[in-house]
């Protein structure tokens, strides 16, 4: 029941702004609705961490891993809404966008969050597919939100590529259905119910499931941003409004990965070992780490930089997922850490964009001096993204290295090389960005100094959560919860 309420509240978020006149009321309504979503997600998810058993009925299935994702979605959409209020307020003030556009914005955001939650909580794999396609459709107009040159292009590529990918995933879904129903095990709606499939998994024909998984991996993997299906990601995530980019990078990629992991459990059950899926994960993970390294090293645009970094981190997560149980722990930690970090980074980037009106490194300099709060937050977040303690990514990357060095040394070397190049690229670009004057002077005078606003509070929330998460991981309370999450994905 709570889940249905949760989904309905997203629809409330989507529609309520249409009934409001006046910007303040729109923002107020959006904030309230978004907070409602957040509170309901807490209510739905938290019990599962503290001993409640997984919730299951014909339509919904919520285990600890899904609860974690619901929690992440709930929190990040909340801080994204807070940041959106600040961001859109500025843009309306400067005349970039109009009031109806704001209403449309929240409409699509509400639908987007609803479809993401649907992906996570669906027991029915068909609904999961529909929801995943719906996430693409609802966000396309958000990517194309501005009338800038390039927004249309980014949205078009996003639409075509992701929809093609999801359609390939549909082939995989059909094959799974066929595997279940042709072997006479299940029929009708129950044949695409995940819990049912899980129980009959060992009897599913392995070869068929393998082919199905390949389609799912490539198809849903397009949405996750795995190389070589990643080409839409830098365009879409950099052209969208920054709070949307934060949500896309932070939670949408994870939702698609969630779908892949659900299927993986089925295939592993059918094959009776996770070796084959692990191999696939390793290969795609390594590719997704090393290719973005080249793009990050010589990048001209900071939002694209963050987008390529998302591809790389998804690669790391997928790579860890192929490394056994310890690797699964690493990937869960990495998912949480990356989601919180990348969304906060995009929110800060939004502040920088508002002030400097450009996303190019050439035109921006001395961010620390111009925007002290945002600059300091941005620097801290970047350092945490680069896996410097006390970031949770430090732990997850070390766990990744510890497993891969022993199990797959060659892959480990490639991943470490990629990480080194990415590190070099980030420091090379971000530090002068923060401290040195711009290479090309901006066209008009840039105002210096800033006040602490709502977006800073939201970003600070993320930071506090990250540090708290790291500390929590070192306490003994963490292991039982982690264990329960891991059993859900292996």
């Amino acid at each position, binding site marked *: 029941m709570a889940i249905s309420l949760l989904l309905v509240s997203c629809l409330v978020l989507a529609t309520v702004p249409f009934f409001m006149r006046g910007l303040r009321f729109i923002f107020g309504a959006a904030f309230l609705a978004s907070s409602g979503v957040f509170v309901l997600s807490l209510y739905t998810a938290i019990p599962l961490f503290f001993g409640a058993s997984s919730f299951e009925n014909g339509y919904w299935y919520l285990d600890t891993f899904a609860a974690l994702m619901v929690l992440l979605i709930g929190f990040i959409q909340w801080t994204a809404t807070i940041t959106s209020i600040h961001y859109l307020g500025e843009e309306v003030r400067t005349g970039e966008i109009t009031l109806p556009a704001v209403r449309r914005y929240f409409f699509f955001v509400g639908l987007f969050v609803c479809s993401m939650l649907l992906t996570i909580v669906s027991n029915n794999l068909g609904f999961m597919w529909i929801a995943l396609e719906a996430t693409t459709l609802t966000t396309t107009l958000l990517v194309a939100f501005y009338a800038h040159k390039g927004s249309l292009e980014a949205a078009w590529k996003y639409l075509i*590529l992701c929809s093609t990918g999801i359609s390939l995933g549909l082939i995989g879904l059909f094959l799974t259905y066929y595997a279940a129903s042709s072997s006479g095990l299940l029929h009708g709606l129950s044949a695409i119910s995940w819990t049912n499939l899980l129980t009959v998994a060992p009897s599913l024909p392995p070869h068929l499931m393998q082919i199905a998984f390949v389609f799912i991996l490539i198809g849903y993997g397009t949405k996750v941003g795995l190389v070589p299906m990643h*080409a839409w990601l830098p365009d879409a995530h950099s052209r969208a409004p920054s709070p949307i980019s934060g949500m896309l990078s932070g939670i949408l990629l994870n939702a698609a990965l969630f779908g892949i992991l659900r299927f993986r459990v089925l295939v592993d059950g059918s094959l009776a070992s996770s070796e084959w899926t692990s191999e696939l994960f390793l290969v795609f993970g390594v590719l997704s780490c090393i290719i973005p390294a080249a793009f990050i*090293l*010589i990048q001209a645009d900071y939002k694209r930089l963050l987008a390529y970094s998302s591809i790389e981190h998804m690669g790391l997560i997928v790579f860890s997922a192929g490394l056994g149980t310890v690797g699964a722990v690493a990937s869960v930690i990495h998912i949480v850490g990356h989601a919180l970090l990348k969304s906060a980074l995009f929110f800060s980037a939004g502040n920088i964009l508002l002030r400097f009106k450009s996303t190019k490194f050439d035109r921006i300099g001395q961010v620390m001096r111009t925007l002290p709060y945002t600059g300091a937050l941005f620097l801290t977040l970047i350092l945490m993204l*680069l896996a410097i*303690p006390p970031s949770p990514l430090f732990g997850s990357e070390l766990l990744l290295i510890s497993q891969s*060095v*022993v199990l797959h040394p060659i892959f480990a070397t490639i991943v470490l090389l990629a990480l080194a190049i990415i*590190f070099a690229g980030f*420091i090379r670009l971000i530090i002068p960005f923060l401290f040195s004057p711009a290479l090309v002077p901006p066209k008009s005078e840039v105002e210096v100094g800033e006040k602490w606003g709502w977006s800073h509070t939201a970003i600070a929330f993320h930071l506090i959560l990250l540090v708290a998460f790291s500390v929590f991981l070192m306490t003994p309370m963490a292991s039982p919860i982690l264990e329960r999450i891991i059993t859900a994905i292996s």
Partner: protein
Amino acid sequence: MSSFTIDCLFAIAFVLPLVGVVLSLATRRFSWNNTLVQSMFILSGFAGLIAGSYFFALLGIGNSASFNGTFFGLVNIALNSMQVFFLMLVYGGVLLTSLYAIQSLPPYKDVYVLPTLNVASAFFIVGMQATILSPSLFTFLMAWEIMSVSAYFLVIADRSDESLRAGWLYFVMTHIGFACIAAGLLLLAGGNLFASWHDVALSALGATPLAISIAFVLLLAGFGSKAGLVPLHQWLPYAHPQAPSGSSALLSGVMLKVALFGFIQGVALFPFVPSFSAFLVISIGLLSAFFGALRAAVENDAKRVLAWSSIENMGLIFSAVGIYLLVHGSQDSAVSAIAPSIALFIILHTANHFIFKTGLFMAVGAVASKTHTRNLDELGGLAQRWPIFAGIFLALSLAAAALPPFGTFFGEWTYFQTLASGMTVSAFFGGSFALILALLALVGGLALFAYVRMFSAIFLGRARTTHAEQVSPMPILLWLPSLFSVLLSIIAGLFLFPILSAPNTFMEGVTLFGDVAILGGVSMNAWWVLLSVIFIGVLLTVCRRSFSNRNPARITDTWDCGQPITPRMQYTATGFSAPIRFFFKSILMSEKELIIEPISMSNPWIVRRRLVWSIKSFFEYWLYRPIGIAVFAVSRAVKRLQNGVIQLYLLLVICALVFTLATTL
């Protein structure tokens, strides 16, 4: 003094810098902010030094001395004397440099943001302590990262372009080094990230020889890069000069030693070292020593001279570590008897280098602070302004050049004597030790040259530019820590050497990694040496007074060919090092370019001549630049994938699908 007190003192020493962080941020508007924070650091250093001294007094100096600390019941840490020794270096360094920083930082308060600089220093200090104290693999790696990152912020403290570039190189190299260390240690630990050192050693017993070799190379690369071993040293000459002087002193004097500690601790986990390891370490050590000394002799930036000198000294220490690896655990008792003396040299030289390098960095920092330049060609004549300070600097330079009565002399003498007596053990050792001795002689000579050059360029003669002419008196806390270093150096020579070398104390059943019998005592009495030096000094003074020309000195113009002589015509540091540059031209790749530009169009005989000379960094030119060019070229090639054509993107998706299906079917 009970072990509980020692425990408390160590805990206080660890926590006080963190208190300093809070205080630094809380009181940042007040003018006494810096003094307060530095006092916290000084107290921390004091507490640690007292704790360490009591440790040694209570438990002796042997390897069997160990102590279980609980840090107020929070964690369980076992300390052995190796760790406490390095900790003492950390605390000593913190004490001296914080004392120095009380008066050295305020003049720079517009260049550095002092509160955040002190926060970075605090984390740096805590990181170094934590690295040494860490009982397990994960905490070690975490502490190492914290130490490296805070050092980065110290390097980029003044946020100038040069600092940012130096910081970038440092950060990237330290990160790569960290990856090597993590990979190497994890290989040994068999993938168990949370293993304690004991567990790592146990699982290393089951590692394959290939894994052992790879792990060794990785550890050498990682720790060696941090310690400044060639060819992974490139960050050091750029980064150390850019940090504030007190922090440079810590970076050079202490952080390099922490890297050494890490390496020793790491190697101790190996069940056996690969056969090539000793030679690898020795050759890298000697190469670093030679290269460091050579570059120190030709650099013009005073701090860079000191940075290269650090590379030289760390190279010496690592060459000794290599020899230790060679002789340790050998079946032949004559061979393995060399080991304790080598261990003695390592300990002594680590301590001595720490003492004189910290002192020198602080002294050079004081000079730079007052004259606003670090360029040796622009200084001069400062001995007349600051006679006492010049004396201190001279003493430190002599210590750096390993001359008696300073401690460095005794350490190096141990090394030379051990090598010389080790030559008789076998023909193999005879040949290789002779070669090493020859190289050490070359290195020693170059080092002496470098320090004489630096001292004379800064202090002797006349001021070469206005920078060095109008200088105000130096505040006391800028030269007092350096004076303490001089005294420490002499004390090290007088007391440390005999304590550590006398039989039945330190060397009793002690080496770096295990138990071996003692070599027949190294023979030298430090007091005799000191007395001889004083005696010779007095004798020389008396002789000069009595036998020199009775006529009073006549003050008049120097013979100047009718041309007024300016201080600019003095022998410069550049000129002084010209023979070295000439001799090693191929390594230094020095270039001289004479640029002649006519000033006016009508008269081509009136020209402006400009002489530009430069030396290229050998490894940067042959190793780093090609790698960098290759990486960037590959990146540019890969970037062409993202050409904006959506059909290509779709084709990539299809190819991925086809390829994966093909491998599955």
